[in-house]
């Protein structure tokens, strides 16, 4: 008799939602979905309903004052989850606007319980809940209070074994509505408009009985409905979920596809490392990245490129383009300004898994920063850190480029302080020699490995990067004004 009750979790089928809920919705729970107008509450509720309702476990959707049922049916059927066969079969809509107009909680409760007794639904939705509270100002004397109403409704619904969703518009965190105390689950949706971009976020403020994924998660609404992009998990060292996430880093090294560069790196780039290629505009970062991917394809190591900058018409990108068309590498090409990093990471990890990719290129961090919505830029560094953690968990080798303003007064690798996050760094620079611009590159760091410290000249030819000999005839070249080495 000492066995605990097992709470079944309903898998909502909303992509990403079950993950942040901690495995799904507890059965018979009493949930509230809150958010500002237009934040996607009704859409989320409908998507959950169409996903979960079956003939054995039917759903009742009460529409109250808020959105006219006709309008809701009109708009909701635009989404792919809307299933006509379920209407009036496993899903029933009930309009309560007239009962609300009567202005009595008693009567409303009576009506709702009566409907529930008739169809014994497994899922109950009340949309919108705010209008319930709003309309009830002019209640008759002796009527139950809003709090009592909710409380009784909650008791009744759990007694009738229904998983319930109230959809409302409260958003003030400072003044939580008493209803929130009764709720088992509280899902908060919001849309943030910052400058020119709009970002949707969802947060599980409360979910009794299970551990949810904390924080704000971005989500999108498309023709398929809502898709949640859970914040990438940074794994701790307590052993939680680390088994899958800590890949065995092999001792193998990856060929870069640029002659002599492997030697400079001490025998190629160690597998699983992240490499930052920093350099000024036109120094050949993308070409280096292209060579890295092409070499991978040649050796049977598929790759994925996240491109934020160049157009496919450019010559070096054409190589990429051909490889993408041939299905040899995956391409995520985006210039949308409304992305969250988690959204990109989500797509990236999906593609890495699909392609079984081992090489990843991010070109470039500067473009990446521009592509994410402005409201995320403040957290850009933190998000990069999470992204690296996820990619490292997948065991892929990452090459990312970073545009570097040519400053000869200091030696910098990245404007985001991301240099310390990476395992290896290659820096490229221009130097002036006899009134000519020449390119030089050097390996600055390869973690736990010996590497060359030479500064070498290189040229960009039609065949790619050709690395020359170390610059021995000049010194002080990082200052931009080399002087001939005294012999």
């Amino acid at each position: 008799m000492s066995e605990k009750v097992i709470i079944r979790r309903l898998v909502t089928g909303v992509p990403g939602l079950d993950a942040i809920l901690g495995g799904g919705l507890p059965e018979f729970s009493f949930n509230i979905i809150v958010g500002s107008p237009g934040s996607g509450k009704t859409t989320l509720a409908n998507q959950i309903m169409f996903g979960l309702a079956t003939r054995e476990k039917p759903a009742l959707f009460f529409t109250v004052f808020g959105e006219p049922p006709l309008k809701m049916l009109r708009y909701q059927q635009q989404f792919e989850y809307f299933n006509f066969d379920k209407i009036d079969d496993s899903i029933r809509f009930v309009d309560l606007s007239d009962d609300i107009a009567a202005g009595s909680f008693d009567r409303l409760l009576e009506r709702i319980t009566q409907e529930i007794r008739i169809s014994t639904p497994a899922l109950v939705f009340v949309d919108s809940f705010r209008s319930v509270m709003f309309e009830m100002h002019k209640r008759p004397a002796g009527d139950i209070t809003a709090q009592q109403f909710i409380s009784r409704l909650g008791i009744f619904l759990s007694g009738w074994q229904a998983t319930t969703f109230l959809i409302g518009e409260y958003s003030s965190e400072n003044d939580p509505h008493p209803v929130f105390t009764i709720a088992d689950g509280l899902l908060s949706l919001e849309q943030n408009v910052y400058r020119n971009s709009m970002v949707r976020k969802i947060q599980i403020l409360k979910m009794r009985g299970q551990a949810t994924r904390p924080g704000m998660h971005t989500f999108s609404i498309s023709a398929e409905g809502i898709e949640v992009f859970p914040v990438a998990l940074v794994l701790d060292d307590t052993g939680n979920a680390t088994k899958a996430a800590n890949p065995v880093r092999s001792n193998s090294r990856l060929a870069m596809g640029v002659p002599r560069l492997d030697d400079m790196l001490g025998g190629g780039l160690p597998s699983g490392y992240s490499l930052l290629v920093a350099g000024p505009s036109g120094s050949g970062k993308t070409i280096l990245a292209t060579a890295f991917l092409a070499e991978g394809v040649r050796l049977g190591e598929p790759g994925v490129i996240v491109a934020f900058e160049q157009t496919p018409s450019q010559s070096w990108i054409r190589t990429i383009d051909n490889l993408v068309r041939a299905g040899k590498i995956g391409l995520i090409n985006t210039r949308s300004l409304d992305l969250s990093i988690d959204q990109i990471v989500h797509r990236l990890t999906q593609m890495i898994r699909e392609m079984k990719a081992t090489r990843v290129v991010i070109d470039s961090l500067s473009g990446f920063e521009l592509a994410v919505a402005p409201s995320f830029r403040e957290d850009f560094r933190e998000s990069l850190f999470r992204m690296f953690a996820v990619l490292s968990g997948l065991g892929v080798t990452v090459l990312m480029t970073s545009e570097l303003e040519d400053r000869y007064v200091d030696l910098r690798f990245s404007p985001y302080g991301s240099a310390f996050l990476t395992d290896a760094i290659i820096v490229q620079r221009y130097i002036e020699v006899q009134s000519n611009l020449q390119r030089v590159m050097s390996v600055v760091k390869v973690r736990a490995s010996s590497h060359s410290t030479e500064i070498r000249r290189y040229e960009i030819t039609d065949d790619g990067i050709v690395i020359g000999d170390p610059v021995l005839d000049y010194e002080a070249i990082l200052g931009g004004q080399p002087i001939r080495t005294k012999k």
Partner: protein
Amino acid sequence: MPTTNSSLYRETVRRMLANRVGDSPDAKAIAKATLSIWHQVFTRLKPLIGPRGTNVLFARSLHLTGAAYPWLSMAVDHADSKDLLADIKTRLEDHAPDVARAASYALLTNFIDLLTTLIGESLTERLLDPVWAPYPTSSQKERVA
């Protein structure tokens, strides 16, 4: 406004109306059948889209039908749908069977077309099919049981 299958659907509605009226139709029979159909439509839609929403749709259909049958849309001033239907019944009875039948049919199809523009063909058919069906459909039977 009418969609691809709507002519087929109109035919169903027309035949159903003919069925209900019977073999030797007079205006009284047509009016009676019309009334019973609308009762069924209202019973079906009111719980779902609310009495108010249903009444508005009906009033709009009546208004549209008024273009061809002005005498029918004179009934529009009733607040209660029951009085409105009773009034329409009387008006239908006052006309020749052919005219009454055409007017009744026009009102029904206008209502269906209106609903279709709002919630689409599939959902409209799904909601109203039980009204046209001569016998309860299988899913209805299950629900009753």
